[in-house]
């Protein structure tokens, strides 16, 4: 086996593999080392029961607007979509429902809001009509652009992504949008609490809770990322990982799984390579990196285990340790059933008229629907139990849009989730969630049956569950069992993610870069961390851009310049 490459990437999850594809397609030799049995990280599927495929983790395509779809030409490697006919359905606790629609169906969806609020129905349709034509620019300026230099002296209104949002909305966005929380913005725009709650639940389970200040663009953005293509990779998320991996491999990347890395070799302050751990499939190896080592592992494991405290100062290590793991430790249920849920009352009429949505969000009543559970999970740091706390409850229904996910005559609801405290933060200790695993399962199923009385008895064939604690063991990088690794809050966002001195993907160790969802813009399998990092590698002279490469037009270099000529700027 070769032991010298231009780039060595530690971690073959979504971000590491995307970077491998970018670098190998740019002509560089690349080696990816993954500790798990399979690449893809969050882009995984499982078939615990023959013929039934569940989503243990990521389930939806947020990356429709990603430059990577075009630059990496994933279609050549088999990428296909399963589209939702409707984006999602909000369900109220009095058994009424409304749809949110996608770019082709939002007008029809707005009519389902009309019984709740005439005004909101018009605003929703108007807003969507405004946004969709500009959506690619909005999303790319927000997510597919490296955070600006942390010491850049600039007023917020002059930031490129702020300008893009303002231009796209014709100045209609409330001032609170750029400073406030989703609660602030939605309260200004809408009157119907259910619509606000639906946006809030969607945003929370996409990584940004509605009450987090300064995160309105990310919360709205995650909702819009989802609406851009509104669907999932055909066959399940792992086929998306296959397309990325095959792009990398087709361009010569060496992708080795079952190869946990023991340490990153640092000589004279520079990262030179990695040493594999005992028991790795390619044991006894030091693998050298001529240009750079990239850690596609979370920031805490990177510095605490792979780099080691001796190479960075104690102040820096403390900041790394303090990074918050809250905000995405999900308890996930997967239900194999014979019939789809038949909802009570008017809700089922909406389904019958518009078709089954890809997802159902419950309860869509008001902000309390969300904040109650947030208080349990974030403030009291206890496992939420009891019917009043075991919500919100997003339910994904993959068999409504992808018939390959279960045999004819069967369905899977996967995932259905609630949030729990990260095991490390739980006031009753890290095993507390697992001790309540069966009880939570029962309570979630009871709640489901309460919404759709047919979800009981013989209709339910099998139920699987994984807790945040389970995820820590099965998903090597998921410290805290947090799907987004670390909190998507303003303290850890933009130039602060994961720490100000790391926000441009560089590290205190020369030739060591970060490429994980603990860097901006976090999770959701956007192919964005790798795309953004490519700008920095180009700026640092590590990578010569290929003819297919195009940078973000909103990228600001360290000198504060706009895009340099080498990247196609003016």
């Amino acid at each position: 086996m070769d032991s010298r490459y231009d780039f060595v990437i530690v971690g073959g999850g979504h971000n590491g593999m995307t970077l491998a594809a970018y670098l190998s397609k740019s002509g560089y030799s690349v080696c990816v080392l993954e500790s798990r049995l399979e690449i893809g990280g969050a882009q995984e599927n499982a078939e615990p029961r023959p013929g039934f495929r569940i989503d243990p983790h990521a389930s939806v395509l947020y990356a429709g607007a990603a430059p990577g779809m075009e630059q990496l030409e994933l279609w050549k490697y088999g990428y296909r979509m399963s589209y939702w006919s409707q984006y999602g359905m909000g369900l109220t606790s009095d058994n009424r429902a409304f749809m949110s629609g996608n770019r082709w169906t939002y007008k029809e969806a707005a009519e389902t809001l009309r019984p709740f609020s005439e005004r909101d129905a018009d605003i929703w349709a108007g807003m969507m009509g405004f946004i969709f034509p500009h959506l690619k620019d909005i999303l790319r300026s927000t997510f597919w652009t490296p955070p600006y230099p942390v010491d850049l002296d600039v007023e917020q209104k002059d930031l490129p992504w702020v300008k893009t949002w303002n231009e796209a909305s014709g100045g209609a966005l409330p001032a609170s949008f750029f400073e406030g929380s989703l609660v602030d913005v939605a309260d200004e725009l809408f009157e119907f609490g259910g619509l606000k709650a639906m946006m809030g639940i969607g945003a929370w389970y996409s990584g940004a809770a509605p009450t987090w200040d300064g995160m309105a663009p990310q919360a709205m953005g995650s909702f819009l990322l989802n609406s851009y293509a509104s669907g999932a990779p055909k066959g399940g998320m792992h086929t998306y990982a296959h397309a990325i991996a095959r792009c990398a491999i087709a361009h010569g990347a060496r992708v080795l799984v079952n190869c946990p890395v023991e340490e990153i070799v640092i000589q004279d302050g520079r990262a030179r390579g990695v040493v594999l751990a005992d028991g790795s499939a390619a044991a006894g190896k030091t693998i050298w990196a001529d240009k750079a080592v990239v850690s596609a592992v979370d920031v805490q494991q990177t510095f605490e285990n792979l780099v080691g405290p001796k190479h960075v100062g104690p102040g820096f290590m403390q900041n790394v340790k303090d990074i918050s793991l809250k905000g995405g430790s999900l308890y996930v249920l997967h239900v194999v059933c014979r019939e789809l849920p038949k909802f009570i009352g008017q809700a089922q009429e909406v389904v019958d008229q518009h078709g089954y949505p890809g997802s159902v969000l419950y309860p869509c009543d008001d902000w309390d629907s969300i904040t109650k559970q947030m208080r349990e999970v974030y403030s009291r740091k206890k496992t939420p139990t009891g019917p009043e706390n075991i919500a919100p409850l997003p339910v994904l229904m993959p068999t409504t849009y992808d018939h390959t996910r279960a045999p004819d005559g069967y369905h899977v609801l996967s995932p259905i989730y609630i949030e729990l405290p990260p095991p490390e933060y739980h006031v009753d200790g890290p095993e507390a969630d697992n001790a309540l695993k069966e009880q939570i399962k029962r309570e979630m199923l009871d709640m489901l049956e309460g919404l759709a009385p047919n979800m009981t008895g013989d209709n339910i064939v099998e139920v699987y569950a994984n807790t945040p604690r389970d995820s820590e063991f099965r998903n090597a990088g998921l410290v805290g069992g947090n799907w987004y690794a670390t909190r998507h809050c303003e303290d850890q966002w933009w130039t602060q993610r994961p720490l100000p001195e790391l926000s441009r993907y560089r590290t205190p160790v020369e030739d060591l870069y970060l490429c994980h969802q603990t860097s901006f813009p976090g999770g959701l399998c956007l192919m964005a961390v790798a795309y953004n990092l490519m700008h920095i590698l180009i700026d640092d002279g590590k990578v010569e851009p290929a003819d297919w490469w195009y940078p973000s037009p909103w990228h600001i270099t360290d000198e504060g310049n706009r895009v340099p000529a080498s990247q196609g700027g003016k």
Partner: protein
Amino acid sequence: MTAEYRPPELPVPEWPDSISYDAVIIGAGPNGLIAGAYLAKAGMKVCVVERRYEIGGGLATEEILFPGHYSNPHAIYHMMVDYMPPMRDLGLDKHGLNFVSPNAQTAAVFDDGTSLLLCRMIEDTKDSIAKFSEKDSATFGRVMRKWRRLVQELVAPATYLPPVAPLDLIESMERTEIGRELLEITERSPVEIITETFESPKVQALLLYASCMWGLDPTDTGLGFMVPLLVDRTMNKAQCFGGSHRMAAALAREIVQNGGSVLDTAEVVDIRIEGGHVTGILMEDGKSIDAGIVMSSLDPQTTFLKLVGEEHLDTALSQSVKGWEWEKWSFCTTHAVLDGRPEYDTDDPWVNEAFMTVVGLSTPEDLLSFWDGVKAGRIGDRVIGHATCETIYDPTLSKVPGHEVGFLQIHAPYDIDGGWDTRTADVQELILNQWKKAAPNLDFLQAHTETPVDIERRIPNMKRGSIKHGDYNALQMGSFRPNEDCSSSRTPIEGLYVCGASTYPGGLIIGGPGYIAANVVAEDAGVDKWWKLPDYVARYRDTYMDLIDID
């Protein structure tokens, strides 16, 4: 099924509705991938299409014991790793492919507390046999020396060359002494071979189990040459580190690295034929691939009746495909999370390290009566089966501290008395009880049973749970697999080739069908064969196949 929605314009670029390749390979199991890897490296533009979301077919590693424990629901005992040409030709170790072949290979734990252990090293095996019979121990040493020669010089090399018609085979085998020995043993049944060679019932029982566990009928004659092969191979199994799926992944990396494509979640519904020549395939989502060469690794009924269509077959082929026999029995496997490795209640603790441990075994008669029951659709109140704790040699299959992963597998009928819907729970209980009786320390933290019906559901062309795509009997082996028209991997339809476990030489991850088909297609397509036959295969060809037209 809900109709799937397609938006008016596609926001994300997708694999095209129609595309052209030199060759399409249906089924990304071991053989489809091996064929694809050889041909891609030969410069052909190949696309391997797979119905499942994950490639590998029987090379599967799945999170059956969700969450966090991985199992090998199909292939786990890799029996031909040391012979298979693709291992060396393709250099799969560069993709991190690793096999572990422990010395402690196949054990039996008997009810009276004794045990027998077949090892990779013959003297270790003889030591264990001598506990029961000094004579058998000596016989084993003498017989295995001969049987290993049969395997090395004849059976193994023939696995990687096209089949030869029975009369030609007999004529060529008669040229050498070892060839004549092969012919002689071929005409005896497994029961005859084993019971006439060894005297101890326990030795007989375990060797009979090893000979027939993969579907050889214990009393049928005509396939006796497989007994030396399977006894030798049960002492030379290897486990794929990281799970059997790693082998599929390594092969797929070869294909993709050499410009080929692998398309998953892509069920083929039609092999297109115009003027007697294949023109490509159609997939269930309406997308198509044009290709002048189509290779099917599926079972013959799916390939010819469902995908090709009877209208393109002559009567003889159509009759022979319809008469294809599925396997006489399948498997029922209970996978379990264990809170520790099994510690068998037996006379030799070394048994605890065995790769495979047979439990419930006593005498050959008892074993035959269990198998007769299975063939008649019955599983009674006790079972005989083999157990493996997969995490002993591959700890990567579970990262949950203190959790081990293992399974106990028994032979089982597809049509069980009472049906699997009602019987799965009690069969699982039987299996777990039998296992715990042999290894009392076992505690099952989680268990999941896969029945023959489940095998078919996971991989539909393992019809009726037929893990080799069809029975091993004299009329379906050699140049009759799947039939005389197609066993060389060419078919009467121009451009259509067969290359799966239902094609000569058969299943069990031996790689023969895929390798032979790659050779044949490369010759027909006139592409550069960048590889050459391994020396041991070339020697066999030169000695026994010089009169036959084989490249």
